């Protein structure tokens, strides 16, 4: 597919959509003068929900999820469930309390709550690590899309895409482009659903709500081609399914760039409701993703390929776009789909590059290395860190270690094993202290990478802590470590314990 030459119309549409974001961002900026990271003005609960959803949607949701369902059928639904069910945990266990606590970045919360600069540094390192892994997955998506758009091989597509992201970050930073997340969600949902409707229509399935009409296609696949995409344990055991699903859930509730969303809403009640709306907007896309995978398998099976060939497996991560091409969706509509996928990957990477870099300049450089640094030198460090982070991610993405969704899942495992327990106990147990959280987060880092670290020597480690699914066993162990070490060492400062009791748990809402 990549050698079919450049796709002119899709290139024009993708470029047009990205440019329009910059233009709208500039108009917004002159009207609001809002902050670059957390676009300012109050936008209501539904708007807040759209912002949560577009902040969330990355190449993993837009491309990777369908790719894994295409290869693994029912097993990959663990991603659909994990990435929606995690919001329930986030809402009931943390959203309101984080809003009342008043610290929104992971290092700020951990540093403040536990009164420990070691804990702050560790959570900054973990946050940067999560950003880095996440960006690698996005870059794989961008590399594949750009490769397809321009008819280049993967590595050239990757370099072109990485170059585009860095230029965007630089230009947006210089001009102060505001991020319009409502518009972004609108682009994502339209670009994902409209081609799917066309595809369902041309294949002769219920097209008005294609996300609910592809059931017949699953049965046709099984009846006519003996392809059973829905077999529950064909690609993994019950333990593997549950471990993956649980890991993605706790990872969602511990992902730094998701936790920081509660900053933009003015009160606890709106924070809670915007999570519910955000989850609904996310579900709209997740209900649809499996349909792309099923239609792709059906079209391939009709063309005499019931099992994906080796080359089709290679391209599984852009199955959403490939299925539109296979289904002869009009080229401009494929362009819109590609634009949606590019936006999802592009803005997620840009956002994470900035967060990762500012975490380095603020939490590590300013707080630890050079407390007397001026604003100017902090900015310079942040800019340098952006470039270094982008370079490392591009280098790692040259030989992607797995599917987009799998790479992303590793970032979730890291978050679920470190930041989730730190927030959970930080909020819900006044006695948890700095020593406990430092020991716990270090344990969590080791457990996340137990498979590559010890898997060869102790095969059991690879079974219990699979790289993408380590938090089912990992998070409870980390929680235990925090509890035990906290009990053995002195309690945290009295002021913090009183603050927790009076402010964070003292009332349900602040009027």
């Amino acid at each position: 597919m990549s050698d079919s030459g450049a796709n002119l119309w899709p290139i024009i549409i993708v470029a047009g959509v990205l440019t329009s974001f910059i233009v709208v961002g500039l108009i917004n900026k002159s009207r609001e003068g809002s902050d670059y990271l957390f676009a300012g003005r109050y936008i209501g609960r539904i708007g807040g929900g759209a912002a949560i959803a577009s902040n969330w949607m990355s190449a993993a949701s837009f491309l990777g999820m369908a790719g894994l369902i295409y290869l693994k059928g029912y097993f990959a639904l663990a991603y659909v469930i994990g990435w929606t069910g995690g919001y329930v945990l986030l809402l009931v266990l943390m959203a309101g309390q984080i809003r009342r606590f008043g610290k929104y970045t992971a290092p700020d919360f951990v540093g403040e709550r536990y009164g420990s600069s070691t804990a702050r540094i560790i959570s900054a390192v973990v946050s940067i690590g999560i950003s880095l892994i996440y960006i690698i997955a996005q870059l794989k998506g961008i590399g594949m899309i750009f490769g397809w758009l321009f008819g280049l091989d993967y590595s050239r597509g990757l370099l072109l895409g990485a170059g585009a992201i860095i230029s965007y970050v630089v230009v947006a930073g210089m001009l102060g482009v505001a991020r319009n997340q409502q518009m972004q969600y609108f682009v994502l949902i339209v670009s994902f659903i409209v081609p799917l409707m066309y595809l369902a229509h041309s294949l002769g399935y219920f097209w008005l709500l294609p996300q609910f009409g592809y059931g017949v296609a699953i049965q046709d696949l099984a009846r006519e081609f003996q392809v059973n995409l829905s077999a529950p344990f064909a690609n993994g055991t019950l333990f593997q399914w549950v471990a993956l699903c649980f890991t993605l859930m706790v990872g969602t509730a511990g992902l730094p760039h998701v936790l920081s969303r509660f900053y933009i809403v003015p009160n606890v009640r709106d924070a809670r409701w915007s999570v519910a709306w955000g989850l609904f907007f996310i579900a709209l896309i997740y209900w649809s993703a499996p349909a792309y995978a099923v239609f792709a398998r059906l079209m391939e099976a009709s063309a005499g390929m019931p099992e994906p060939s080796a080359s089709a497996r290679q391209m599984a991560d852009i199955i959403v776009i490939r299925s539109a091409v296979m289904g002869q969706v009009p080229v401009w509509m494929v362009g819109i789909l590609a634009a949606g996928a590019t936006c999802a990957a592009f803005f997620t990477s840009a956002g994470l590059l900035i967060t990762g870099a500012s975490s380095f300049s603020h939490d590590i450089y300013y707080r630890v290395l050079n407390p007397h640094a001026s604003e100017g030198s902090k900015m310079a460090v942040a800019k340098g860190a952006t470039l270094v982070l982008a370079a490392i991610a591009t280098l790692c993405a040259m030989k992607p270690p797995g599917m987009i969704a799998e790479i992303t899942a590793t970032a979730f495992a890291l978050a679920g094993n470190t930041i989730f327990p730190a927030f959970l106990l930080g909020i819900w147990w006044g006695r948890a202290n700095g020593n406990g959280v430092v020991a716990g987060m270090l344990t969590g880092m080791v457990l996340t990478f137990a498979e590559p670290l010890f898997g060869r020597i102790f095969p059991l480690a690879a079974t219990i802590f699979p790289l993408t699914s380590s938090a089912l066993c990992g998070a409870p162990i980390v929680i235990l470590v925090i509890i035990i070490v906290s009990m053995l060492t002195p309690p945290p400062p009295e002021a913090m314990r009183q603050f927790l009791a009076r402010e964070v748990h003292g009332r349900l809402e602040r009027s």
Partner: protein
Amino acid sequence: MQHHEEMYEVNPFKPKEGSMVDELAVIVAILVGWGLLNFGFQALLSLLAESATGDGMLTRLTFLSFPFHFWFTGQFLPLWFVVLCVIFNLYTDRVTERHSHRRDRTYE
């Protein structure tokens, strides 16, 4: 004695009377609904499996022309999560309002 001045230490197993008891009750209820329907259903699938790939009663049933288990996991569960969030929010809204009406100091 300074009985009422005694410092409360946040601990979900020893909740403070008032707001925290109500808050924990709804959290536990939601988490049970969250865990049972999701992990419970996967366990049920595994219990009813008749082959290594897990085909069984629930996979032969169809609903809205989907194999039932596929519909349940792929479509119903995300909807269920949205419903749980809405229930949690409505309940918390109501409790907050009721207690601020009563001028219960713990809800201020």
